[in-house]
């Protein structure tokens, strides 16, 4: 887009492509859309009849003085009014609903896509920006479907209809009225080009003003500490001035456009009076036809001057659809095979010469090989940045390995369908993630069908039972967004209960190091002990008690697997684990002895 910012023809083609792609969303709703379009055509035809009735009133009654039959015209007008009312309602309602349904479809498509796209995508795009795609950008498209498309179509029908009626009533006078059309085309073209440029300029300034506001509001204390208020103000003032000037410039085009269209309309009316009046005097044209021509020509120019507004709608819709399609066109690279191989062994996990870098050649894991036997409990130790969390990210395939492979019973995890792979693991993360909903829903979150008794049992086993009972509503108590009303320890216990209810074959644990009181700490220790006993476990452990429970501890350092063995044996080696132990765990020994 940036490349052809100044390249009009290319961009027009680009816009047309976007528009065609957008219109494809109309297809599933073509029946409703067809009703809307028929209503539009019917409504336009009725609108065309009104000036014609006036013509009849003038020619048949006013000029002749004959009142009989006037009731017929009045009745026809009443029918037209009622019909217009019904058809316009039908057209607004159906078209509005088509717009809403398309928005609904688009939102679901975007949201479903976000559920499939790689986790790595979230690293690059802040959640706030992704939210904008689902909400603001989709809304901008709503304007296009609900008011843009419909009114453009209505205007076209009206314009064509009026031209037809005029030609039918008197082709000579019609040609006179049409003579101003080239002028209209010229003025509109001029306006379109300039309004587009000035719209761009204004948007550009607004973006800069918003960026500056954002920066100043979030950095106000820095501004104040360095007593930079005056200069920041001057910088902001420059943008504010630029924005105002751009707006003043754009007023010019609008201020010229409307009067210009009116002037051209007046020229048309003048020509109708000059030629038409002459023909009336000669007797080749009725006065009623002349008056009807004048009324039609007034209706002819109104849709044209509405054009500017629709133009802004189109611009905004194009910008939004570009961003939306940009997201939809980003394919998930990690999609597992639909019908891949399923490991059917006991569930032996092997890391084979695994290398991984989040970016370029900056390896976080280097040539890591180890295996986890079924039922074995593995602890992972290492300093911050040693690559511990990355192991989990790779095992659950949030990312794919750069080199080497991870296998379950000899089957590369890249060949296992994603949902099947992830269903094997129960993940308990450091930052416990609770959804808004009830306690019950949070515990039963991943499992397919969990009975109330099972939820209850899981809660009790995780020592979450007592505090849940104290909540109003017990298991049905509401959990606020991100579990804001629960303490860190309570959230931890809930996440254990969730993992227990899920009853995974392999437990993957990134243990929290939250500050909790001693009583809660004892509960967590005990619940954790229950959680891992007899279950294949892969745990990043921060508690000494957890490490001691483990069959084997893998010690990572700077991305490499450096030491492995049970707690006592590793301590005796007086290597990295020994140092780590002194750094991170020794204090727990005294605190919780």
């Amino acid at each position, binding site marked *: 887009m940036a490349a052809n910012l100044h390249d009009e023809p290319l961009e027009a083609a680009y816009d047309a492509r976007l528009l065609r792609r957008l219109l494809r969303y109309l297809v599933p709703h073509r029946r409703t859309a067809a009703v809307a379009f028929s209503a539009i055509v019917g409504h336009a035809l009725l609108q065309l009849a009104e000036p014609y009735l006036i013509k009849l009133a003038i020619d048949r009654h006013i000029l002749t003085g004959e009142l009989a039959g006037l009731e017929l015209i009045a009745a026809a*007008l009443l029918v037209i009014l009622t019909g217009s009312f019904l058809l316009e309602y039908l057209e607004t309602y159906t078209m509005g609903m088509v717009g809403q349904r398309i928005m609904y479809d688009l939102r679901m498509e975007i949201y479903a896509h976000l559920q499939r796209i790689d986790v790595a995508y979230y690293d690059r795009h802040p959640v706030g920006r992704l939210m904008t795609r689902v909400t603001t950008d989709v809304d901008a498209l709503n304007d296009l479907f609900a008011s843009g498309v419909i009114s453009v179509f209505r205007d076209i029908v009206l314009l064509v209809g009026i031209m037809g009626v005029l030609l039918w009533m008197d082709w000579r006078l019609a040609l006179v009225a049409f003579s101003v059309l080239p002028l209209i085309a010229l003025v509109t073209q001029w306006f379109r080009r300039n309004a587009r440029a000035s719209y761009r300029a204004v948007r550009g300034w607004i973006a800069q003003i918003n960026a500056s506001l954002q*920066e100043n*509001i979030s950095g106000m204390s820095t501004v104040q500490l360095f007593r930079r208020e005056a200069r920041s103000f001057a910088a902001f003032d420059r943008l504010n001035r630029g924005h105002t000037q751009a707006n003043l410039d754009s007023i010019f085009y609008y*201020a010229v456009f409307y009067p210009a269209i009116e002037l051209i309309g007046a020229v048309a009316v003048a020509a109708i009076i000059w030629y038409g009046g002459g023909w009336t005097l000669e007797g080749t044209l009725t006065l009623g036809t002349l008056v009807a021509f004048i009324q039609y020509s007034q209706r002819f120019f109104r849709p044209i001057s509405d054009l500017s507004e629709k133009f802004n709608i189109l611009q905004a819709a194009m910008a939004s659809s570009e961003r939306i399609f940009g997201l939809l066109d980003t394919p998930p690279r990690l999609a597992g095979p639909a019908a891949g191989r399923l490991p059917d062994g006991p569930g032996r996990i092997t890391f084979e010469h695994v290398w991984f870098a989040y970016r370029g050649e900056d390896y976080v894991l280097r040539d890591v090989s180890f295996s986890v036997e079924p039922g074995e409990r593995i602890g992972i130790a290492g300093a911050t940045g040693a690559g511990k969390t990355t192991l989990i990210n790779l095992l659950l395939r949030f990312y794919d390995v750069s080199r080497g492979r991870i296998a379950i019973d000899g089957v590369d995890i890249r060949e296992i369908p994603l949902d099947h792979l992830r269903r094997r693991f129960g993940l308990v993360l450091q930052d416990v993630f609770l959804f808004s909903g009830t306690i019950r829903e949070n515990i039963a*979150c991943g499992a397919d069908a969990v009975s109330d008794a099972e939820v209850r049992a899981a809660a009790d086993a995780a020592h979450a039972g007592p505090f849940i009972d104290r909540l109003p509503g017990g298991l049905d108590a509401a959990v606020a967004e991100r579990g804001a009303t629960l303490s860190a320890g309570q959230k931890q216990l809930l996440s254990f209960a969730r993992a227990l209810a899920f009853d995974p074959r392999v437990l993957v644990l990134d243990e929290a190091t939250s500050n909790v009181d001693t009583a809660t700490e004892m509960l967590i220790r005990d619940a954790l002990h229950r959680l891992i006993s007899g279950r294949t476990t892969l745990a990043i452990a921060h508690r000494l008690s957890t490490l001691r429970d483990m069959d084997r501890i893998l010690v990572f350092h700077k991305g490499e697997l450096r030491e492995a063995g049970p707690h006592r044996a590793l301590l005796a080696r007086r290597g*990295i684990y020994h140092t780590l132990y002194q750094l991170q765990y020794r204090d727990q020994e005294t605190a919780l002895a």
Partner: protein
Amino acid sequence: MSAQIGAHGQYNWPTGCKGPSRSGFPMRLQFNSAARRLLPYVTRYRARFAVGAVFLLLTTAIQLVAPWVLKLAVDDLTAGVTRGKLGLYAAALIGIAALGGVCRFRMRCVIIGASRLIEYDLRSHFFGRLQRLDLSYFQRNRTGDLMSRATNDLNAVRMMVGPALMYAASTGILFVVAVALMLSISVWLTLIVLLPLPLVSIAVRRFGDAIYDRSERIQAQLARMSAIAQEALAGVRVVRAYGREAVELDRFEAANREYVARSRSVIRIQGLFFPSLAFCLGLSALVVLWAGTREVVAGRMTTGDFVAFNAYLTMLAWPVIAFGWVTNLLQRGMAAWQRMLAVADAEPDVRDAQPQGAAPAPVELRGRVEFRDLSFAYNGQPVLEGVSAVVEPGQMLALVGPTGCGKSTLINLLPRLFDPPPGTVLVDGVDVRQLPLAVLRGAIGYVPQEPLLFSDTVAGNVAFAASGDGAPAEAVESAVALACLDTDVAGFPDGLETTVGERGLTLSGGQQQRVALARALLTDPRILILDDALSAVDARTEEAILTRLRGVMRQRTSIVVSHRISTVRGADLILVLDRGRVVERGTHDELLAAGGLYAGLDRQQRLAAALEEA
């Protein structure tokens, strides 16, 4: 003209606005004062508005002449007329349109232009008010909310003082004059035709209110849908790990469905809105056709009268519709203006003790800092308790302690980012609350842990505090060199002129911290505060920086917060804080000998260093 805003809005307020209080009287009082405060912004451009009013009158008058010409032409045609006279009418129509066009052009430029100028003033003043507010205000109010007031609300206010005013005035005049002309054609026909019109205006307002209410419900549902999406997108790892994608999709779909359902109720009303208006206006046209024809046939009206009457009736449609539209704009504009005033009226807690005029002669601070039995609570939570310390010029005070122990709060009180209790924080023996903010902050160079750089060049960010044309190039270069940033800068594409931030080069955390250090050094401060300011810089570079800074620090007071023992070991006094209290104090050697928290920290860091070598 501005009085008109007050009058309209006052009339509308009790019914329409969703303010916090619905009791009429106090709201109206508050509302009146709000409207009065908008007045100066408008009266500033009274000359412009006066010119605009003249063109508005002319435009409207000319617009009303055209149907009259039509009337004359039609009457002449029925009576028989020369072609020459027809040409005259045709020319008159074009002339009228040309003249009207020029007036309309001027009217738009002048009035809409004035509204843009008012928008400029409002935005400038709003920004200026924001600059006065203190840190605690920005912590209480979300950036997004303040942004929305500076953008959406501002736009609503502009719509009120510009387009709404213009349309209100022009349609008002149009209505009065058109009705007068219609009355001159036929009194009783006019009266019959006008009967349904009040209904139309009432309908417009009713529809407007109903649509507004339902739109609010749609907005609420949109917020709910956003919250659901936000939650699932932020927790994407858990969602994927538990295979919860389908559940999340269902939740979102339910919210999406409800959104469509609520939209449907608005579409229903909107769908009725214009058709009902068109129907009411159509009824008037029907009356004209039915009764007007009889009048002409009876000889009480000419054919031209009939045609002109129809044309005027068409013209009336717009004012009738615009009336409802304009009242909605006014209503929304006033609500937005009050939201903006709430920000503009906020008073900072931290401000100069003396009124601006009575400022004392500029003081040259030496930089002796004293904390005297300082206790401080934030939001009712005690953060600091009984902290005392003295730092003489040329000395270095170091603060050590676990996260959340109150270190950052302590140093935030010195430049008065928050106000300390009276008599607890002193510079040169004077309570900081008694020192002019400009003098106090001018003497302090502050380097935060997470510095905020602005989208500007490196040089621009370093010379952030410099006044006028910026700092001399040598000063910037030497500050950059002191902060050990010179080799980094040499590698940037445009050296010191490289733009950084969102639209430019992304700096590493360590580079950002060093830019912030250079920025503080450039101000040549008496007191240098480093709030864990080199945490993202590796140990070797930090060592180099501290060596280079040694000479600079000898001449001034420095206060350093750090997690690294290597940074603080040379300090004249080290305070170890825990939960807001000083638990250990002394020099490095004294604290090591004491064998407390500090000694434990030292041991841990030696181990970590050993691990790094492994």
